[in-house]
């Protein structure tokens, strides 16, 4: 067993930023807007680092796809305890149309190249909310998957994953190598310690092009339009429960 874990980290607009749609309606304003690591990716990194601290795995490799700035996100992962990084360079139009299908092809290629025994990703990104990359990566690799993980434990050549599903919690045991996607309650990501931030400076980030991995970045999707959500209409106050039922019937809700 290589003992290597691949963790995907995505650079997204910071959760606290107020999103604005571009005037040309093709997307959202990203220039000069604060970006940070996707919160679910932070949880994924934390889980990988914890596995390494428990000596269950040997190496954590952080991967990010995007332009130059993606390296900042990788550095943050390194500061949290990842051992080295891989920056897959995707820029310009390719980056604008980069989606789960292309990213999962890249991750699958890297997982094979790095002989990873585990790929841990965030369950979804807070910008596109696709919730697809983990699942697609597993399918492309023909590996089992444990998604929406709220608990992960290694048991020999298997991984036990407790999944948060609509009905409650589901426990699955899957063979290694596998793909796991992190949900909110999996862990609380650590604050990078200052010595680790300093050490991160010396850790390596390798540069790779998608073409080197044999991945075609052509998108099968075309964004037609991006609009703001409709303005919230004011509500109505009623005096009694009967009034409430009456109004609901009136407006055709029941």
């Amino acid at each position, binding site marked *: 067993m290589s003992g290597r874990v691949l963790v995907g980290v995505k650079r997204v607009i910071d959760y606290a930023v107020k999103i604005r749609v571009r005037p040309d309606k093709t997307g959202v304003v990203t220039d000069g807007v604060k970006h940070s690591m996707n919160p679910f990716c932070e949880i994924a990194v934390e889980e990988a680092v914890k596995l390494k601290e428990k000596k269950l795995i040997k190496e954590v490799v952080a991967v990010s796809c995007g332009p130059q700035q993606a390296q900042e996100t990788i550095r943050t992962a390194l500061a949290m305890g990842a051992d080295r990084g891989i920056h897959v360079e995707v820029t310009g139009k390719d980056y604008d149309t980069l989606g789960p299908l292309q990213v999962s092809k890249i991750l699958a290629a890297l997982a094979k190249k790095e002989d990873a025994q585990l790929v841990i990703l965030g369950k979804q990104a807070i910008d596109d909310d696709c919730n697809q990359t983990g699942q697609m990566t597993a399918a492309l690799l023909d590996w089992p998957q444990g998604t929406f993980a709220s608990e992960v434990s290694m048991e020999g050549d298997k991984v036990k994953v407790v999944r948060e599903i609509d009905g409650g919690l589901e426990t699955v045991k899957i063979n290694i190598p596998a793909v796991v996607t992190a949900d909110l309650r999996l862990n609380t990501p650590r*604050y*990078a310690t200052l*010595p680790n931030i300093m050490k991160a400076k010396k850790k390596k980030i390798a540069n790779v092009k998608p073409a080197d991995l044999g991945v075609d970045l052509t998108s099968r999707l075309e964004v037609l339009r991006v609009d703001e959500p409709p303005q919230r209409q004011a509500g109505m106050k009623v005096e009694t429960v009967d009034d409430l039922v009456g109004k609901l019937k009136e407006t055709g809700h029941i």
Partner: protein
Amino acid sequence: MAALFKARKALSLCLSGCRTLSQLAELPETHQILRQTCRDFADRELIPIAAKLDKEHLYPTKQIQELGSMGVMAMEVPEELGGAGMDYLAYSLAIEEISRGCASTGAVVSVNNSLYIGPILKFGTEEQKKCWITPFTSGEQVGCFALSEPGNGSDAGAASTVARQEGDEWVLNGTKAWITNSWDASATIVFATTDKQLKHKGISAFLIPMPHPGLSLGKKEDKLGIRASSTANIILEDCRIPLDNILGPCGAGFKIAMQTLDSGRIGIAAQALGIAQASLECAANYAHKRTAFGAPIGKLQAIQFKLADMAMAVESARLLTWKAALLRDSKKPFTKEAAMAKLAASEAATFCSHQAIQVLGGMGYVADMPAERHYRDARITEIYEGTSEIQRLVIAGQLLKEYQL
């Protein structure tokens, strides 16, 4: 071989590049990550509790321990001694972000780093460093700095606390006033006169553990601001300590105090910046949401002028602070710049917090919004670690030397 040489040269260029003015325009990546980490900590761990800490005068024990485990309580201390081994620019960034969350916590962190650990790191023996620094790096224990007395603050040379040698001990008598962290500290540096004839050259510095026989604390002061950090008198009555507890040479106390305060000023400047920044953000957010005369008040010129003045005050003070830190990191003289930074930042803090209340109107006057707490917290920054008046004297003193007057 050639590749190795090139790589080493590139690294040293990179490191020396770290000490240039270009850093004022864009911080190095490590510093950006550090700043973001401290900001996240302040947003998640400090801002939600700051009002409660202030209202109930609560020392942030858990948060100080967490900051300790991150390395923030001993930022300049080398890793071998348990610190983070970072530079003063990093320190000023950390203090600003922490103070933006909670000014009291910023004060505790700053005093531990600059005023307690600082002089021991610079003037202590290797034994003293291991004994008095290492246990104070994790956040489990904090230290304090006892220079001021009821009879002298700005007039530090007139220390009436005395220390006499008796056999194999020093015996100290006197009272120190306004000591930050006193009620939460496990050690203190006390400045006492060992030879009255030599005036300020007859003052020495001493390390005293807390608690200790002969050392007692006065009542916790009921302050206007930074209420989560304790401030009290330290009373010494025949307080006996081993001879080895003297810090630096006999008679070097005044010099140690002044040099320590030079660096401490950068920390306080950073704390004031945090308060000023928090006030600016509070005012700007409010101006965006509050409507009057049919539009958000941020659209009104009167409010815009205030916000512009506030932003400019913060940014210029910040650049002065960074410059002072960079000069110190390059081992260049920084006394004048540190005094300028502290003066500019503390005046920016009082100005911004004052204007923030003005922008918020009635809401600025009540505890529902943090503006009133920033106003109260800001006030001390113009007083401690050298009043604004003293800063002006320090700056003028340096200037006069430069112009050979």
